[in-house]
């Protein structure tokens, strides 16, 4: 199935996807595919969340659009007002959708909007009208300046041509979403190590985080500013160990990775002669 592949790691929240969507759908009537998009709707939206602290904070930016679920909860309540196209896309039929507010609540992703003026629910159409006209991709994908969005055939994605494991957004909703993701935000632990005696940033410190329940560990080395980042961790508590030849070993326990903590300045003392 051809679908949109989203890589939040490549999103700058420039919102060109949102604006391309609005450019295509606001004030334009693409009947029978869709009526004009209402104000304050985001058929695709970059959702932003700040994590971490201090100089090691991060803005997680995740473009979210209709997930084209295989077990679409909206379809279950829509009756004849929704249909699935040949490519597998789920669409609202504007000719039959008047008054169907319940579609908005049916969607666990919050991507169906209600247009009070038209008195009907609206959502992303994958630019089906353009695909019908022979266009090669939806507008949001063409507008993305940095490949955070691409239009791919997921059946052709393999271990050989994927740069990161394929994921789905909130699979726990149980709707079998068909929009693909890679690099969805994960917890991280960051900080910097220095020697307070010589006031020196410590480079090359082996930093190892061990999950306190699963025992799984992540390793990195500090850079020339003493900085380290342990990325893409599982949620949970960790023991973080610091090891550098000539310095006393140090361990910090019960580090909660869900907060994406900035351990700030970790002091390592030189071993006594």
């Amino acid at each position, binding site marked *: 199935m051809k679908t949109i592949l989203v890589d939040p790691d*490549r999103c*700058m*929240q*420039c*919102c*060109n996807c*949102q*604006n*391309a969507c*609005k*450019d*295509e759908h*606001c*004030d*334009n009537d*693409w009947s*029978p*595919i869709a009526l004009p998009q209402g*104000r*304050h709707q985001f058929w695709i939206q*970059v959702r932003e969340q*700040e994590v*971490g*602290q*201090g*100089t*090691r*904070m*991060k*803005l997680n930016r995740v473009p979210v659009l209709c997930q084209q679920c295989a077990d679409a909860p909206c379809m279950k309540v829509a009756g*004849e007002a929704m*249909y699935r*196209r*040949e490519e597998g896309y789920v*669409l609202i*039929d504007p*000719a039959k959708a008047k008054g169907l507010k319940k579609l908005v609540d049916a969607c666990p992703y919050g991507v169906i909007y209600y247009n009070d003026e038209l008195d009907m629910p609206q959502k992303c159409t994958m630019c*089906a*009208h*353009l695909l*019908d*006209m*022979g266009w090669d991709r939806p*507008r949001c994908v*063409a*507008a*993305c*300046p*940095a*490949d955070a969005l691409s239009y791919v055939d997921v059946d052709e994605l393999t271990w050989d041509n994927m740069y990161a494991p394929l994921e789905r957004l909130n699979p726990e909703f149980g709707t079998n979403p068909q929009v693909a993701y890679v690099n969805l935000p994960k917890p991280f632990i960051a900080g910097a190590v*220095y020697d307070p005696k010589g*006031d*020196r*940033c410590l480079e090359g410190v082996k930093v190892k985080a061990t999950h306190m329940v699963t025992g799984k560990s992540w390793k990195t080395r500090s*850079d*020339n*500013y*003493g*900085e380290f980042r342990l990325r893409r961790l599982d949620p949970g508590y960790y023991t973080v160990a610091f090891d550098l030849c000539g310095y006393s070993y140090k361990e910090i326990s019960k580090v909660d990775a869900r907060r994406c903590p900035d351990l700030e300045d970790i002091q390592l003392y030189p071993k006594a002669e």
Partner: protein
Amino acid sequence: MPQIPHYPASDGTRRYATCSTAGPMFAYAKDDRIVRIEPMRFEPEEVKSWSLNRHGKEYKPPLIHPLLQWGLASGKPTVYSENRVKYPMKRVDWDPSGERNPQNRGISGYERISWDEAYGIIVAEMQRIGESFGPSAFCYSMSAHPEWGSLHFVFSDLFRFWHMVGATNREFTPNSWEGWACGAPFLWGYWQGHGLPPATDSLQDITYHSETIILWGTDPLMHNTYNGIDEARIWKYWKDLGKHIIVIDPLYNETGMWAADSWIRIIPGTDNACGAAIAHTWISEGLYDQDYLDTHCIGFDEEHLPVGAPAGSSFRAYIMGEADDGIVKTPEWAEPICGIPARVIRAIAREWGSRPTSMWVLTGGACRRTFAHEFARLFGTLCAMQGCGKPGYPMLSPGLFLAGPYDGVRQLGPTGYADGGMNVVLENYYPNTVKQTITFQKFRDCIENPPQKWHGGHQDNFNAEMYLETCEYPMKGHSEVRLLWQRGGTLTNQPGKMLRDHVAYKSEKIETFIVTDVVFNRDCRYADIVLPVTTLFERQDLTEPGSVGQYVPSAYVGLRSAVFSHKIIEPIGESRSDLAIFEELAERLGLAEQFMEGNTEDSLLEKMYARTNIPLSYQDFKEKGYYVWPALDDYQPGRQMKEFYEDPENNPLDTPTGKIEIYSTLIAEFYGTDNPEIPVTPRYIQEREGRYDPLAQKYPLQDLQAHPKFRFHGKFDDCEWLSENYKVYGPDGYPYEPAYLNPEDAKKYAVENGDIIRAYNDRGGVLAGVQVTHRVTPGVIWLTYGAWNDPLEATPSMLDRSGDINAITNPDPMSVHHVGGAYNSTLVAIEKVDLDELAARYPEGFAGKYSTWNWKG
């Protein structure tokens, strides 16, 4: 199974080409209405691409050239905006043959008049004023960034018309990189680029030679001037190549979040303390190029001072504590000033001093502060200590400095933006007959308290000495200005403390004030006549994307192209192009032949096209709308300052000694060798209205004015598609400008996300919506410029609802050396406000009586 609906094979639109400040685009129209806009895309078979290849990794420019953030919003939301000026308008209580009521500028509303009436009034005013006072009583000016265009650009039609008639130029200083402009020419010349050495082929130099990239107060992805996010893939490519990227900035900027390995927070205005400590580390540890300094520079050490220079005036002496101040500039000295731990300063110095490092330091917010010429000179000196011109050491500005392998000789494109337009192709060029100028920094003083005297303050400088040249107003044999013509309505929110200008606009000395603009806002609200101008979708032009004419050859990392801007729809309302407006005025003044020389818009474009070597006929090019240059197989990249680096004797710089003047002979000559505000060798000078100013007791937050992400300066502030992404919608539904604060400060001042606050100082106040984030250094508030002013009372800037900080930024001179450019040195205090109480206190203001986009009054 019911029938699945499908859309027909065509939507009946026609595709056109055009180019905007956001990049090249296709626009689709049907029945004289724009249906969609999309980034221009090329077909694979029409492209022979250039590429970068390093360590087995390849970079090729994309076939779809990304638009900047406002690109898609510049279409339908702008063209069909309710804020468009649709008809010529006149202020209701301005009567050119009776009472002019200048005191009501900014208060009264406007009424529609006919074009014939508008031209009639303007011609009569020009004749009346011209006959009595001569052409110097006319004054023209422009906003810095009009619609994209080449023929339709200020240096084209605006300059041609007013230079032909003669008029005082109200010019702005190079406020994008003020400190570099007034400082760096004394260091290394390069006055053509306002002190910036062109970064020739920096894309290649960085890719192949740099190992470290330092972003010093610069945000290339979001500096938002003609390019930016189109470089996003290149930054990922550089990161992939293992380049170490660090950002040193009070703000964790977008490029930093996108690509940097480390963000190092610095207290605004203390860059030179950190820079001096870096120099100290280099000198102590031998991490610099003494040979280069000996052969290419003067003034680094005592052995290389010019004749007559006082002992102890070298840079080395200042750093090592051998100058008059006696302070050794160690990292430990700098730490409490700049807020960066000494060990981190040493780490920066060791990295920069031992790996080829590309310094992104040109322009940037650090150069728009008090004493910012010293920032430019000191950081230029640091670059010289590593050898300017050495492979892998290019110095860059966030914008307009990266370009693909474009050959300016064999690939002759049309001039892009910011070039001479019609003046380049017409037979006669008219130098302005009026020599008088007013730098906009002195506008109010000139209007209210003539005579005035200052030095420098020019927009364009043709040598370093022009920064020292004395200007007088009124100039001998010239009149004071009485008729003001302004292109674009956004001039007075660019400098600090706009109240200066708004008060000046209410002066009865300004008898007639005409503004031409696409949308009605800001300065329009002070005009007597407002003329409606077309958007770029409503007229033809010929340009090259990302090419900004005289400033830099090209700022474009895409596939190099030339674009014909089609006229896609008929002008909205009765709008006309500025060119058409001047054409008609010239006609009525009996100057038609001089102005157009018998040409039309189309024949001028054809002549401009004839200067290119694009292998298509004008008609074919016009029909297709674009041309993509094939990459040259034998392209030989140059390098920034390469010739000077290799042979300084035969390629001298444009300084009195031909060398990099760390000790400036011109400054010594003009200011003497002991001026504390502009010393002969660059120094750290504690800034006025900075963190260590006693005023900080009263106004404790330093205002940061990093460019707004979703505006082009002030443009597109009214576009909901964009403002939904960043404005803070108050409980009253009003889109307040965001004020970003560190969590420490939010706690200290007891404010939370979404609170509406007043940021204020002695100059006035603005309202804003709090956004708490770790992206901002403690003690700093990121509340930027560009919102459309919405004063709550008749005197603007006292309390501005829209939150344009330039209502209250610092308008004072940078130093004795330069008349302006200190707006980033602005302190404010904040307090949470009660909106209900304010709404009750300012019922008219809250109803929008003084909103600068309100033409009804």
